């Protein structure tokens, strides 16, 4: 197992695609030291910015292939496109964590900047702090969001989580910002706590479950009924009752939006339409 810890507090953006089990794999620590990494507009060696130690994996992260210890919120693109292995990060981490990840596992004991798990295809990202905007969302201009895999956030998430999602699952145990599941085509998004407006805007298909308070439902969703419980994944169902909305009408979508009945008395006016 390789242990990385930053040698200083970073001010400039650090681009570190090389922090990836598949790249470290079968490299001596000397070779790893030499791996290219960008600090601002200067190219450096990984070893110039990080203390690199090779030691036995033990305790809670014995499965880990890479562990990062310390504040790395400026360090971007960690685990980009990784296929297998496990990265455990103790500290806040920067943008594009696990972008286009295909397999393996990333665990973060801290907060994560934008675009975590962007365009993810497989694997698991576990975030024990908060995640910023565009969780699992695609790159600008691209309509292929998350295509598989699983993202679990124990804190809150920012705007547009799961935008353009096609498959996979996002679970948020805190609350979420605007436009959860924007233009999603499939997959499941679960939010345990509250949610800002415009949830499921322009969704074509898929499932969004809001277990907390939802400021308002878009006028382009229509009430379908009340459901007692809803399935999140194989092993897990959320206990309702939930209002079930269909939408988004503007896209002739048949996405399902479940909103907790108990937490949202202001939506009771919809009941008269049932």
């Amino acid at each position: 197992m390789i242990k990385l810890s930053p040698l200083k507090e970073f001010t400039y953006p650090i681009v570190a695609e090389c922090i990836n089990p598949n790249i470290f794999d079968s490299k001596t620590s000397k070779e790893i030291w030499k791996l290219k990494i960008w600090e601002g507009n200067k190219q450096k060696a990984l070893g110039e910015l990080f203390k690199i130690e090779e030691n036995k994996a033990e305790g809670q992260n014995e499965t880990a292939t890479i562990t990062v210890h310390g504040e790395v919120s400026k360090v971007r693109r960690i685990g980009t496109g990784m296929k297998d292995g496990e990265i455990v990060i103790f500290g806040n981490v920067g943008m594009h964590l696990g972008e286009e990840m295909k397999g393996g596992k990333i665990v973060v004991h801290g907060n994560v900047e934008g675009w975590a798990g962007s365009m993810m295809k497989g694997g698991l990202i576990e975030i024990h702090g908060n995640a910023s905007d565009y969780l699992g969302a695609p790159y600008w201009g691209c309509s292929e969001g998350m295509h598989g895999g699983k993202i679990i956030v124990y804190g809150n998430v920012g705007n547009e989580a799961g935008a353009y999602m096609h498959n996979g699952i996002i679970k948020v145990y805190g609350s979420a910002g605007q436009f959860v599941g924007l233009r999603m085509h499939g997959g499941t998004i679960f939010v345990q706590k509250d949610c800002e407006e415009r949830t499921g805007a322009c969704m074509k298909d898929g499932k969004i479950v809001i277990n907390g308070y939802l400021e308002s439902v878009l006028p382009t969703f229509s009430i379908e009924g009340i459901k007692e419980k809803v399935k999140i994944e194989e092993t897990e169902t959320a206990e309702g009752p939930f209002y079930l909305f269909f939408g988004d009408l503007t896209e002739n979508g048949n996405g399902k939006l479940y909103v907790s009945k108990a937490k949202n008395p202001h939506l009771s006016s919809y009941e008269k339409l049932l």
Partner: protein
Amino acid sequence: MELLIKNGFVYDPLNGVKGEKMDIAIRDGKIVDKVNERKARKIDACWMVVMAGGVDIHSHIAGSKVNAGRLLRPEDHFKDFEGKTPVTRSGVGHSIPSTFTTGYRYARMGYTTVMDPAMPPLEAKHTHEEFNDIPIIDKASYPLLGDWWFVLEYLKEGRIEECARYVAWMITSTKGYAIKIVNPGGLEAWGFGHNVRSLDDQVPFFCVTPREIIRGLCKVNRLLNLPHTIHVHTNNLGRPGNYLTALETMKSVEDLATDDNPVIHITHCQFCAFKGDDWRTLESGAEEIANYVNSHSHVTLDMGQVIFTDTTTMTADGPFQYTLHELSGNKWVNHDVETETSAGIVPFRYRRKSYANAIQWSIGLELALLIEDPWRIFLTTDHPNGGPFTSYPKIITWLMSKKAREKALKRINARARSRSLLPSIDRELSLYEVAVVTRAGQAKALGLKNKGHLGVGADADIAIYNLNPEKTDPSRKFKAVRRAFKQAAYTIKGGKIVVKGGEVLEHVVGSTMWLDVHSSEPARITDEMKRRFKEYWTVEYENYPVTENYIEVSNPITVKARV
């Protein structure tokens, strides 16, 4: 500075050179009969192929439409980038490369002259500004004139000569090179969201038909003695059954031809060679078109070959682009230009397994192989509409090797394979013929005197490919051919070595060619004319023309008109 290319196998169709081993001498950017052996810098081209620099008659590389495409597609760029080097600027690809990258990538393939086929006159300055940022290659652009209100009005009244004078004025003041006609009449109709369906439909509000526009401008083209013919993108482009429209269009100017010189160029012909009633019953109309072309001398065409990749379609044909948007559901840009033309952009992925796309792929190659005279059909992808120009090497191998075609055929949609004419075609182009369809023929059709050949006096634009015609049989070793054409061993532009082994050595600035048309009595810019300007356009007359200071390296070509 003197340069001597020694012992290459030279293919120079315009001078009838068919692969003889010979030297090419260069002085001050021109080809000369001899230079001082000892002084001159030498390039050993032994066991290599030497050709004139490639010429592309139809490739959307600059201007408002192309740039709108760039802006529209960050997802097209972000994985295909080129870093800055001591000599080159950085940039991005893929289907709509940024300006610098466009120049470098053409040069790496040994291309040195490229024509941008669609310039909205009102936005001509934009095209020329981008030309200045496209390094190495020489460029020119065709102003879109087929739906210009002036043209429609004069042709309606049958006033060909006035029309010619204003066209002359327009070509010169936009610094253009040829008359481009796109879906004649259809673009004006698109102003209100409509289209025209046949050569004899009336253009709404203008009481003139596509046929009259094509014939009219064809006559204008001859009155003005322009080096190239009218450059026509037919009506009904991209809709099944349109091969009839294409044939009609060619027939419509049959009688205007004299001493079998071409009078019309049908561009990206693949897109208008569709047989069948709809996309399911789509079939190839290549045979019918080839038969007509083989028996008539007044037409030239280019392929508009389709490549199975993710690309960006962009034409001035607004209605067609809208149909494509509805068909694919992909994002759509539309940009209509007052009193002149329109434009549309839609990203599109051609899929092997799609029946229609596979048929389209087949049609392009069928045309190139069934039309006997290589001087009449040219290699293009209508970049980026059929696919990016970087796929030319692939196409060359398909033209040169039946084996390569069969390999590709195996992977396409089965139903399309069974309908394709390709298995029945044995023809394989020779290197000589490839030199025709990629440079000589295109230069001839464009009337470029100093391009596309290696005769004394020609511009020293030369491509040297690492391919030994005595050892490698292109029909079997097609992979080697592709490699060779992908990365020129040397590209020489204006006598300078700009590319070596696929690496750009020098960032030289190519020239912009434009026509300075002299008519005996030029279009007078009267107050009446200025009034009309105020009415038709939202820019002052004084601000309209492209002044020469917009062109970094200006190469005006003077033309004496007959009016």
